[in-house]
């Protein structure tokens, strides 16, 4: 048994990390968010979310990320079930294939999609040579949703896969023994038992989708302003760090809500990778 003091010592590198890269930056955001340019205390930065421009950007971001999350869920759940039903060796190769693109830089992959989806891009050139109509998706909300689904799908598949893999096959067999058909078994046994994975998958897709600014800038051609873009612009173009921080704090509220949601449904942290 480690004594408490020794435990504390072992945790030291992490505490150092957490303080330097999580706590201090967070305090800075809160400080900037709650002050104005003269340094006086104000709620104006947070209240500015009510500004029609900002509300609109937030609303579009919420809408697009909800759509992306739903699409991810419907793609990921059947896929996770297929993965679980594979034999051990095969499934780990498939899971690997899913994680593989994540080894490449996120920004690069998104920029690659810009070139692929362009009107004169690879996909449209191919479609035209085989006589199919062009797809005009680049610089539309559709392209942003596509980018979100593509980038965040693994975050939905993995937690669902994890929680499905943990279900004891005997529980399913017992249900079948007692006369439940496939659909009832799924609805009353598999689905409820995999719910923790689904919930953490939803959080892990919804949160980055809600806050993204890169995907909308690259695939949306800056034509659709998400709340992430507004915040990014406050920092990079306007150099109004106070307003940017205030809006970030509003977004944090959304993130905290979805974390509470996860904590309620996924008490044992089952869905976590």
């Amino acid at each position: 048994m480690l004594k408490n003091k020794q435990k504390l010592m072992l945790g030291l590198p992490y505490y150092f990390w957490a303080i330097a890269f999580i706590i201090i930056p967070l305090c800075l955001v809160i400080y900037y968010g709650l002050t104005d340019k003269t340094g006086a205390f104000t709620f104006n930065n947070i209240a500015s979310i009510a500004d029609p421009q900002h509300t609109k950007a937030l609303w579009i971001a919420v809408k697009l990320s909800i759509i992306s999350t739903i699409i991810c869920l419907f793609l990921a759940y059947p896929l996770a079930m297929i993965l679980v039903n594979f034999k051990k060796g095969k499934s780990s190769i498939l899971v690997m294939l899913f994680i593989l693109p994540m080894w490449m830089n996120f920004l690069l992959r998104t920029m690659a999609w810009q070139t692929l989806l362009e009107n004169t891009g690879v996909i449209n050139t191919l479609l035209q040579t085989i006589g199919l109509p062009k797809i005009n998706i680049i610089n539309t909300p559709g392209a942003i949703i596509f980018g979100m689904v593509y980038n965040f799908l693994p975050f939905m598949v993995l937690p669902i896969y994890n929680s499905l893999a943990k279900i004891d096959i005997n529980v399913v067999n017992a249900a079948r023994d007692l006369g439940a058909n496939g659909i009832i078994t799924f609805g009353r046994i598999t689905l409820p038992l995999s719910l923790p994975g689904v919930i953490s998958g939803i959080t892990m897709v919804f949160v980055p989708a809600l806050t993204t600014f890169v995907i909308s800038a690259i695939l949306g051609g800056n034509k659709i302003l998400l709340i992430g873009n507004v915040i990014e612009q406050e920092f990079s173009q306007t150099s109004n760090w106070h307003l940017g921080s205030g809006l970030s704090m509003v977004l944090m509220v959304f993130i905290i809500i979805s974390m509470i949601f996860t904590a309620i449904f996924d008490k044992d942290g089952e869905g976590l990778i």
Partner: protein
Amino acid sequence: MKKRILTLAFIVTMIASLAGCGNKSGENGQVIVYNWGEYIDPETIEMFEKETGIKVVYDEFETNEIMYPKVKAGAVKYDVICPSDYMVAKMIESDLLHEINLDEMPNAKANIGKQYWEMSTQFDPGNKYSIPYCWGTVGILYNKEMISEPITSWADLWKPEYSGQILMQASVRDLLMVGLKKNGYSMNSLSEDELKVATKDLVEQKPLVQAYVIDEVRDKMIGNEAAIGIIYSGEAIYTQRENENLVYVYPEEGTNVWIDNWVITKNTENYENAVKFIDFMCRPDIAKINFDFITYSTPNEGAQALIEDDEIRNSYIAFPNLSDYKNLETYTYLGEDNDEMYNEFYKEILGADN
């Protein structure tokens, strides 16, 4: 006890390695340069390092607005920066710049043309802080194969037949400039009413716009992805080398003339090296190498004389006779409150419905 010593040793090594980060420099120290993306021939940096033994730490930015807060916050101690005209004025006002003594820079003194020093006094009275590096104009680039009628004015960018073919600039001043100039206003307008008119026009134009981009204009125009793009003159020369159908025009309502300038930051720790770096870049042979690489007009008359290709030396894009064009303007620094007003209008345009 032993454990405690180990932990201590661990912490000491951590601190030592952190402190070591800043010390990798050449035999004669270093200079930290912050420049626009693809705005120098990397070869000239190597030549500088070899000749002087000074290590160059090189970093890039995409817009003046991204550069400014980083420099102001002082997170990285840049020595040499290359801001545009109005940003030089803003940095002088915020007391971020170090005065420059031209006697320490013989190459700059001898080679930069007189007219460019004069242009610079608009934003740097007395030429105390900045050395002209590149200059140019903003214009419309169009593809004559994709568009039947020649484009001559900003107003042409509102024609419905060009829907989905127009690339606008995604930066505050360059976007609003188009709206203001189209209506015959100054691009430095401080009138809220004029800005409202410009913004209304740009919002109306939005459904016709393919995308708001900066550096991507170049590749999209070369690849025939768009037919019309707003572009800097230097980029225009580069794109024409790659795609011969591209034509650069000065819109008849007038446009922006800009100068990007070398400056030294106030709290530089390598002043001597910074001076050497800037002066090296003003040497005619070096400025010529950079001109060939980035194709932005050089104010360096020594380098201009070295250009062998008559077509380029007489090019209306690279070295225009500015008196041929009407209503050219340089951006001026508007002050913090007006900057904020411009930003609000910019946000309104990008946030508008398509």
